[in-house]
Every structure is written in C-alpha cells, then in structure tokens.
C-alpha cells in the first residue's frame, strides 16, 4: 500500500463534517502554523517539500509563493483554482465533495503564509453541489473559530469566500480565472505582468490548484523534508490521479509519485486492469491536453525502462515518445476505441472552449475540428493529415495562453502515434464509419533500440 497523505481518512464516515475531520487530526496544521510558524517559515517548508503545482503545469508551489510581491498598503490575495474542467480530471470534485475541510484547512494555512486577509475559492459553476458543501464547511470552520477575526487568538484575520464560475474551461487558466472573478469575460491576460505582481484587482495574487493547497496540510503537519521523502526525484509527495475511460475500476486514487504505470493500471489496489477483459490501446496520462501515447510507449520508455507515474518519467522522450503528468487525468482506451473519433472529440472540446481572443486559437481550433470531422465521417483526403499537423504547429506557441498548445498537442500526438489509423480512415471511408481500426500493434512491446554501429 502506498502512503496516503490527502485521502488517509477518506473512508471515515462523516469525514465531510467539521467534527469528524477534527477528531481525525484535522486543523492541526492551522494550529501549528498560526501558533508556532512565521509566514516566511511556511513558505520555506513548502519550498523544501518540493511540491509542484497539481493543476497541470507542475511549477514549484514554494517558488511561486516566493515571487509574490509585497508592496506596502496593498492587499494580497490567494485564489484557489477549483475550475476543474480538463477532460479526464475529476480529482478536485472528489476532494471537495468528500473531504472539503482539507481544502479549507489548506486555504487558511496558505493564506496566512501569503498574508492574504481575503481569499477566494473559484469553483466552476457546474459544481453547484460542491459549492454548497464548501459553503457549509466554511460556516462550520468559522463557527469553530478557524476563520474570521483573530483566528485562534493569533491576531490573524481571514475571510474565505466561494465564487462560482459560469461555465468556461478557459477560466482554469490563472489570469482568465482572475478576470472571471472580477466579473468579466474569461479572456486570459497578456503576461507580463504576472499575477504575483498584479493579479486580482491589480493586487499581488497567487492562484493555486485545489490539490496543491490541500497538500500544504501534510507538509505543515509533517514538515517539508518529510513530504519530500515520499515520491521519486523531483516528483515529491503524492498525487491524486483521476482514472477514467475503459478501466475496470475507474475513480480517484492517491498514489506515491514514482509508481510504475503498469502497476497503476493492472494492480488490484488501483485500476484493476482494463474493463471487460479487453486490451489496452492507448493512454492519455495527464488530462486531454497532453500527448496521447500508445500502450507500448506508456508502459515502457523507448529505452525499455519502466515508465513511472512521475513528472520526469512521463515526460521521458519529450513529445516524440513521451507525454506529461499534467493534471493527472488518466484516460485509458481499450482496443475497440477509435483514435480518430476521440481526437475529433477533443478537438471539438477545444474549439468550443476557445475564448476567441487571439486569432490562431479562435480560428485554428475550429479548422482542426472540421478537418477531423471530415476524416472521421469518411470524407477525408490524404493531404488532410499533413494539413492538421501544419495547422497545429501554427497554433502551438503562438497564442496568448496555453489553450492553443493544449488544443494542438492531442492532434499532433494522435497523428504521430496513430497515423496508420488516420490513413485507414481515408482509404477505407465506408468501413471507417462502421467499425473500428482495432488494436494494430500499438500494444506490442517495442523492439529493443539497436546499438549504433
């Protein structure tokens, strides 16, 4: 059994209530932080822990915190990004539903560390039940004296509010989230200035993912160094993985970073293999934006090493033969899934969710979707495949925010690894609408790398 730092008490009945959470040792981190630690010391602990942002980018959280500007007479804000909408990711919903106080506790400690007197949790509007749960949890914590004026007699005041979104994936981007929180359209801002200098209402702001903030709790309880002992290399600690798609036991799992992918998919402790006894065809390892990998490349790297669930190992091989940890949205495809159809589906998602502010993403995502739709429905041409690759390159890196990259990568990687399936759609249009291409040899082990003579 791997260590559980966030979901240790998830099966305790009533853990979503303040009393049970407290009995299980909850809010110890708040007591420790407010009574014995200085804000700088907390930032230092988080730095030591090596915690990396759990929202997708994997930027070290402690470093992000230390960038926060501290001008005199200006408020500072902490905003929690709970706008979870990356296809394949549902860990934050799970965490907020079943153990909301972990997030509240993390918010209190983090706000104290950053010197924020008001903090917001921006939850996507569709998660109205989770908004109600959080509001209830905040009221409970406030009742118990963990929020409001002079928390635990430390002289520190904090108000915590839940803000609903309105239905837009782009608001998961931190500057778009800030815009949305200011009551505007969720158009990402042009950086610089970064939120750490000028964010919410023009004040220095830190935006962190739900899981990152929750992870601050074990870091403070056990110390940063202790946290850094879990995991592997620069991928420290545990990570919530949202396992979905054709798995026998989909759900949210807390893993120690460094767990072999094969073990995660096939062991009974985690996903229990592929549903209905089928074979694995492909995996999207970190939410829909990261490159998709065929089964043989997700289980082992091109060098024949076991691929591990860690930031480094998943990225091994770059975009040629690797992928990314992303937000931990693990989507498994069985042998009967059509990669073209799925790529079209993802492409439609990005087309629908593009904010429309900058031209390559606004026009390019729609173009890619239309071409993919044509291929999937048997009207494609050979030149369409190269066209898609070219359009994706025109978008990638040329947009204001990473949504352009996120839209380009799945298309480019699907063509890179499953080009024969795209070609089959073009050469067999009638068959392609009736049946799937199948497994081909995507699941066969890779031939060993030949030694250069």
């Amino acid at each position, binding site marked *: 059994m791997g260590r559980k730092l966030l979901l240790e008490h998830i099966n305790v009945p009533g853990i979503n209530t303040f009393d049970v959470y407290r009995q299980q040792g909850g809010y110890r981190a708040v007591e420790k932080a407010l009574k014995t630690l200085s804000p700088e010391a907390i930032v230092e602990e988080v730095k030591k822990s090596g915690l990396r942002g759990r929202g997708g980018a994997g930027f070290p959280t402690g470093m992000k915190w230390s960038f926060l500007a501290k001008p005199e007479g200006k408020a500072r804000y902490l905003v929690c990004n709970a706008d979870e909408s990356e296809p394949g990711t549902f860990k934050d919903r799970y965490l907020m539903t079943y153990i909301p106080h972990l997030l509240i506790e993390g918010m209190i400690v983090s706000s104290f560390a950053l010197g924020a007197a008001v903090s917001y949790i921006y939850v996507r509007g569709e998660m109205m039940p989770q908004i109600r749960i959080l509001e209830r949890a905040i009221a409970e914590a406030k009742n118990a004296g963990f929020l409001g004026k002079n928390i635990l007699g430390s002289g520190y005041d904090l108000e915590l509010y839940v803000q609903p979104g309105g239905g837009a994936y782009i608001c998961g981007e931190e500057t778009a989230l800030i815009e949305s929180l200011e009551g505007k*359209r969720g158009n990402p801002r042009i950086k610089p200035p970064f939120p750490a200098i000028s964010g919410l209402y023009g004040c220095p702001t830190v935006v962190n993912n739900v899981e990152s903030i929750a992870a601050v709790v074990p870091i403070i309880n056990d110390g940063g160094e202790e946290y850094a002992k879990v995991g592997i290399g620069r991928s420290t600690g545990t990570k919530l993985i949202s396992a979905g798609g054709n798995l026998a036991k989909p759900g949210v799992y807390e893993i120690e970073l460094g767990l072999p992918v094969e073990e995660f998919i096939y062991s009974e402790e985690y996903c229990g293999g592929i549903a209905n006894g089928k074979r694995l065809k492909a995996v999207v390892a970190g939410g829909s934006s990261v490159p998709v990998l065929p089964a043989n490349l997700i289980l082992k790297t091109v060098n024949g090493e076991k691929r591990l669930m860690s930031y480094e190992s998943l990225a091994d091989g770059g975009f040629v033969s690797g992928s990314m940890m992303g937000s931990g949205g693990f989507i498994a495809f069985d042998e009967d899934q059509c990669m073209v159809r799925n790529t079209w589906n993802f492409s439609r998602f990005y087309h629908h969710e593009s904010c*429309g*502010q*900058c*031209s390559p993403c606004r026009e390019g995502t729609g173009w890619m979707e239309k071409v993919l739709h044509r291929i999937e429905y048997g009207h494609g041409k050979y030149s369409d495949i190269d066209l898609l690759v070219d359009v994706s390159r025109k978008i990638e890196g040329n947009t204001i925010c990473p949504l352009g990259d996120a839209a380009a990568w799945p298309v480019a990687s699907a063509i890179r690894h499953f080009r024969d399936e795209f070609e089959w759609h073009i050469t067999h249009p009638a068959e392609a609408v009736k049946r799937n291409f199948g497994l081909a040899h995507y699941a066969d082990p890779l031939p060993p790398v030949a030694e250069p003579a």
Partner: protein
Amino acid sequence: MSDKVKVTIDGITVEVEPGISILNAARQIGGDVVPPAMCYYSKLEGSGGKCRTCLVKVSKGSEKDPRPMPKLVASCRTNVMDGMEVQNITSPEVVEARKGVVEILLINHPLDCPICDQAGECHLQDLAFEHGSEATRYEFERRTFDRIDIGDKIQLHMTRCILCYRCVYTADQITNNRVHGVLGRGDASEISTYIEKAIDNDFSGNVIDVCPVGALTDRTFRFKNRVWFTKPVDAHRDCPTCSGKVTLWYKGADVLRVTARKDQFGEAEEFICNTCRFDTKQTGDWVIEGPRNISNNSVISANHYETLRPLPVVQNNALLQEANKEQFERATKF
C-alpha cells in the same frame, strides 16, 4: 541620456526610452523592421496582443539576462530591455509563424474586397499581400453574419471582422458610454449591441477609423467611390468638440468623406467628432491646408499627383517619356 536602453532589431541598434514595447522601438527605426499590427493601437490603452501578427523572436533577453525567450512574443505587448536583441524579418521562424497567422485570419474572412469600402486602405489586405499565400487550404463554409446598421451613420459588417477589440476600447476610452461589445465565445464571438441599439455619441464615428478592416464603415460614404479614386486633403475647422483637424477625401469638387488624419502606421493622429466627420461636408466648412501625403506603398497614392514619379525604366528611355508626357504634365500642373 543614460536612462535610454539599447535594443537591436534585425541587426539595427536603436536607443529608446525604457519601458516601451518592441513594436514601438521598431517603429522608431521604421521601414521593413516594423512588425505589422492589426489589433494594437498606440492611442488605446490595453489594446494589442490579440491578433498575433506582430510576433517576433527575442534571441537575447537583455544584457543582464541574455537567455532568449522560449516562445515568439507579441512585440506590441513585450517591453524592451537594455541589450535586447530581436529578430523580425530576419528570423525564418517569425516569417513562418506570421504567414500562419495571416492564413488563419483569412479562413473566415469573406474576401469581398471588390465590394468592400475599406479596400485600398485595409490593413488586412496589405497584410495578406505581404505575408499571405496565394491560395487558402480552408475548404469549409465561412462564417457569416447579417449586416447591421448601428445608427444611421455606421454600418457593422461582422463577417469581415477580425476581432481586434479596437472599437471596444475606443468606445470605452473615447466615448462616455459603450453600447457595443464582444459577445459570444471562440469563433462564434461577434461585435454586437446584443439588442438593437444605435451607437449614438459625439465620438462614436472613430470606431470606423480604428477598424483595421471593413467591418465598421461609414454609411455616408457607402458605395460612393473607391478610396483610390478620391484625393485626400488636410483641412481644419474651429470645432467646439474636437481638434477639428481632419482629412477630406475629394472627388472632383465634392467632399465624399471626412476622416481623422492617419499616420504612417494607419493610426488616427487625433480623434475627431461626429459633426466634423458626418455633418460638415462642404469645402466652405473647412480651411484647406494642402494635399495629404500618402505613403508610396499605398494603392491610394497610385492615383495621387504628388507621388507620381517616373519608374526607373521610364527615366532612361526617351520613347517611354514621350508616351507618358500627358501624365507628367498633369502632375506638374498641380
């Protein structure tokens, strides 16, 4: 003096005020080094960064931190640092990316230049001419919208819009209330008032001047003439609302339209009021200053007496000079 920072763009070094954008530094150099800008407008705060045509490569960040920037950056919204080195047309990567942006900007554009009043002074037309490819690879139906009259003076032809947001910033910053904005999302976004409303404001006509394409046009000039058949003349009048400094566009003795004076980058020098723009179209209303100088690169100048210069091939050939005699005489007479 020592406050100035040194920046090198395409190998040309220039000393500029710290804190200005790469684009504005390039504009101080001028010529081919200046990246095209479809959405940036120096007089509108917050504009820029959206169209991505002004992308450049920063090959050296600054003297202090010489690392290159990892991605191409929008030159209109990236500030210069001391010792920065920028590549614009000398970087194949930039040229390629810009070509891509132009292609993408055009996939949903109707390309109806033959019936568009903006043709001849359209930035998208220039951009496509300079950086576009001869054919599009887009084979789907283009996005269309209905034409809308916003009030009796301005027409909105959303199909042509490239969503530069300039008109929105103009309404926000130049006028005292904004009734139009960007509605919807993604490639379904549109400039609209949502419910039928007239844009009625002393300075609303400026949205026509800031529009880089033919999406917002002057209804009082609609289909009156092609811009390159009209002759621009600078004039002013004593206006209680604005500076009164305008360009009149003549066809024969008639003033067909009035616009703000546009500088070499196509930006209005000073915004003008609607009375000047729409309601004072008699020569007698104005004090004429003289012909407006139009860049040689513009199609407008092709028909413009002031810039009629014999081509090199004509200069050395007596026969051709004789053939063009009438043209030269007409030009000198003026």
